[in-house]
């Protein structure tokens, strides 16, 4: 158990510093946003009560207050005035009060750098106030400030230090004789990184004020929260384990070999994944994100008021998805393996040519070839119905029925997918020693018996990865269905991932789509755990 410590530190160091920096960064910008907006809104609201007459006087007071603030370079109070009766959306900004008294009564100039900054901030404070119903009747005024701006790339700096520390850690772990001398150095580096990120947040906050109106979406913050929760045990075991000096000596080499792939992967996959999970519990309305708990999941799993066997119910779609995946993978495997067996014969002429031709479906971008297939399935002008007619059969309205539309999808995807399986099988076939076949032949085994008793069992371990991952990819293969049948008829041929895609990109409900994605993930996870039992048998 203590050997888990080995992987922990490497990952933990990078994550801890990077997340630390990002969390601080997010927090800072939130605070800046809140402060800036609250300030402007407060003054706007206050002045609104008094009406236009009072604005001039009160404005001077506000300006005086702002002037006293050390961060404020210039401030202005402006009034929004309708500019033209014909075009109600045209507005003007008139200066009511200003740190430069000569500017009072003038129009805000688009050409002045300072005025531009003022105008920018009017939109943060003032326009927000305007669109809020309470202020709509009376007022178009806002207090604006401009502040000095410094840019420091602290998150990147924290990440760099984290990466350096992790590298040292890794090198330390890879060495034959573990030394404890490197560890204090790593600890020091970590402290410096953390200190910098923590100290830097004020500067970052001011930096971000400029873009203060950026989205306050919660999912990102929640991602970090989740990340911390998930990673804390890892960090704990990792750091504690390494501090106690129980280095993973027997397995150091193994961890060293695995680490580079896993570190990159965890950075680029874990965080987006956590983001998706966090998103599944939120809902966004008019740019405001709210936490909705399990609502989306309940909604989806209760099949949204539909009968379970109706298209668009989660269970129907899941069944279609499983059928789609099973049939496709079986076809890919059968065709790919058959072709690979034929093409691996070293005496076959034009072997290279056949191989290159048969890889074409994989090489050509599927966006266009999937549409070509859709064209071939056209009811009136498609090649396939034309051939059916030639052979005296009835033409088929492929996309009008569930079964035929499903067949059209599967045909297209089989065409697109078999080359991958063929190439993988070609590679895997080379792992079978040729003398085994010779021995089998001497024993008088037929070709089928050779395949059944030599090829298949020996091929299994090398082919299982392709089948396993092929299953996952086919399960989430969205573009074929989207381009060929488009879910026709009436979403019956949609699979889970196309449904998730529709919610995200057609309905703009990312939270709901994320909940769908989480369910897809869970289904696949069950399959993955099951499949791992299959591979375990091979390794023993």
């Amino acid at each position, binding site marked *: 158990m203590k050997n888990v410590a080995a992987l922990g530190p490497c990952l933990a160091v990078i994550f801890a510093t990077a997340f630390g920096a990002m969390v601080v960064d997010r927090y800072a910008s939130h605070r800046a946003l809140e402060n800036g907006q609250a300030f402007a809104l407060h003054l706007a609201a206050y002045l609104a009560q008094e009406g236009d007459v009072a604005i001039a006087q009160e404005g001077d007071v506000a300006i005086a207050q702002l002037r006293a603030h050390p961060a404020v370079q210039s401030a202005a109070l402006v009034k929004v005035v309708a*500019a033209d009766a014909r075009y109600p959306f*045209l507005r003007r900004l008139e200066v009511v009060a200003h740190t430069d008294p000569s500017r009072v009564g003038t129009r805000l100039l*688009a050409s002045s750098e300072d005025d531009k900054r003022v105008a920018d901030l009017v939109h943060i404070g003032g326009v927000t106030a305007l669109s809020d119903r309470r202020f709509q009747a009376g007022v178009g005024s806002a207090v604006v400030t401009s502040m000095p701006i410094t840019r420091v790339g602290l998150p990147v700096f924290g990440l760099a230090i984290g990466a350096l520390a992790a590298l040292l850690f890794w090198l330390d772990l890879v060495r034959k004789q573990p030394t404890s001398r490197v560890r204090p150095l790593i600890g020091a580096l970590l402290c410096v990184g953390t200190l910098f990120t923590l100290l830097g947040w004020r500067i970052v906050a001011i930096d971000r004020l400029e*873009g203060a109106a*950026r989205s306050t979406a919660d999912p990102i913050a929640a991602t970090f929260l989740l990340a911390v929760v998930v990673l804390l045990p890892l960090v704990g075991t990792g750091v504690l384990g390494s501090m106690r000096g129980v280095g993973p000596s027997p397995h150091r080499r193994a961890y060293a070999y695995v680490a580079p792939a896993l570190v990159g992967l965890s950075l680029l996959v874990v965080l987006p994944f956590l983001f998706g999970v966090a998103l599944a519990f939120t809902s966004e309305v008019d740019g405001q994100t709210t936490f909705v708990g399990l609502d989306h999941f309940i909604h989806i799993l209760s099949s949204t008021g539909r009968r379970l066997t109706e298209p668009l119910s989660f269970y129907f779609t899941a069944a279609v998805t499983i059928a789609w995946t099973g049939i496709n993978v079986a076809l890919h495997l059968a065709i790919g393996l058959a072709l690979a067996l034929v093409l691996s014969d070293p005496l076959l002429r034009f072997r290279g040519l056949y191989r290159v031709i048969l890889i074409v479906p994989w090489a050509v971008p599927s966006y266009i070839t999937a549409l070509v297939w859709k064209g071939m399935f056209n009811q009136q002008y498609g090649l396939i119905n034309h051939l059916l007619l030639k052979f005296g059969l009835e033409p088929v309205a492929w996309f009008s029925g569930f079964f035929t539309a499903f067949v059209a999808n599967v045909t297209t995807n089989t065409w697109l997918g078999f080359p991958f399986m063929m190439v993988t099988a070609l590679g895997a076939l080379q792992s079978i020693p040729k003398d085994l076949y010779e021995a089998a032949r001497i024993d008088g085994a037929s070709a089928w018996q050779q395949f059944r008793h030599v090829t298949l069992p020996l091929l299994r371990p090398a082919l299982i990865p392709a089948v396993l991952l092929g299953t996952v990819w086919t399960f989430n293969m969205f573009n074929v269905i989207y381009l060929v049948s488009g879910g026709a008829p009436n979403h019956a041929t949609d699979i889970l991932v196309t449904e998730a895609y529709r919610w995200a990109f057609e309905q703009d409900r990312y939270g709901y789509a994320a909940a769908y994605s989480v369910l897809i993930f869970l289904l696949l996870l069950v399959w993955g755990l099951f499949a791992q039992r299959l591979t375990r048998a091979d390794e023993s």
Partner: protein
Amino acid sequence: MRGRRIAWALGVCACSAATPPAVPDPPRTELTVWHSYRGDERLAFLATVSAYDATRPDLDVVLVAVPHDALPDKLGVAIPRGNGPDVFVFAHDRVGDWAQRSYLEPLGFLTDAALAERFYDETLSPLVYRGDLYGLPLAFKCLALYYDRTLVTEPARTTDALIAQTTALRARDPAVWGLGYEVDSLYFHQPFLDGFGGALYSDERDTLAFDSNEAAASLDFVRGLLVDHKVIPNEATSALVSSLFLKHSLAYVVSGPWFRAELAGHEGWGVAPLPIVSATGRPSRPFLGVEGLMLNRYSKHKTAAFELMTALTTDDAAFVRSQTGGQLVANRQVYLRSEVRDDPFAQVFRAQLGHSVALSNRPHMRRMWTPLKDALSRAIVHGEDPAAALRLARTRVEEGAP
């Protein structure tokens, strides 16, 4: 091996010799513009941008063509993080969403009446969201009726005339079809929906109204065209429609200005306004889409960027876009110039602009497409009850509403 190394060395020498002596450049402002124009439209847009760039030694305008499908998502991730362009071109239907997310700079403070007067009012109002203007219109797109001159001498003005003409054509030659468009697409169905008196919303507050008797009547009507009169080919995708039209096997096509590019080199076609719906006597009004220049809220050079936007929407620039790019520009004055005045294509679409319904720019609108596509497919293609299909679509849209 040695020979190659020498060649490399020579190459380096040549390069360093060719480098001009360093001259301190005046500080230049770089403006980035993202667009997804293609073909002639892209060339025309490039021409207007570089013409303006040449007049401004203090400016560098960098154009980046982004694939259309990727542009909205790219803007969505780039703008809030300060990596967005200064100016970008997109259709107006996302304006509400982007304005709510504070991606767009409201232009009401920067624009004056003289600038607003350049454009048709119909092309300005789609860019207004909750009382603020969020873009300057470049061009508009809407549907009109293309017809084949070898099959139709005088384009039909009413749907009854259209049915009569096309059934006669079909009777003469069954290989010829009457009317082609994607019957299960809301965008293409809108003219009939409107002509029968239906609408998507009953007001500005996203109150749904498409499950009306009028809307059901419009579905019945198209079902009639497809099944009873058999003038529309089955599974009429845009690819099929254009290939039939190019073979002179299709009398009418409902399509937009983009269709002209596919007809390059093809003779014997014309454009007419969409027909009046005979059952109601109302014109069938298509959706109107406006491509606007929009200003990034987080642009570092808003003044310069707005100057660029103003320069790209002058009548002269619009004229270039109209002539080189074949665009239906938003500027009124351009349609009075002789080249455009005598172009029936531009004039027909300009007339159609007056009889069009702007696509809603509110975020809610994006939820309508798929449910209504389903309803159209159910009622028109599969012959289900239109009213029931529309009610089902309504449930689906409301389900989509959080």
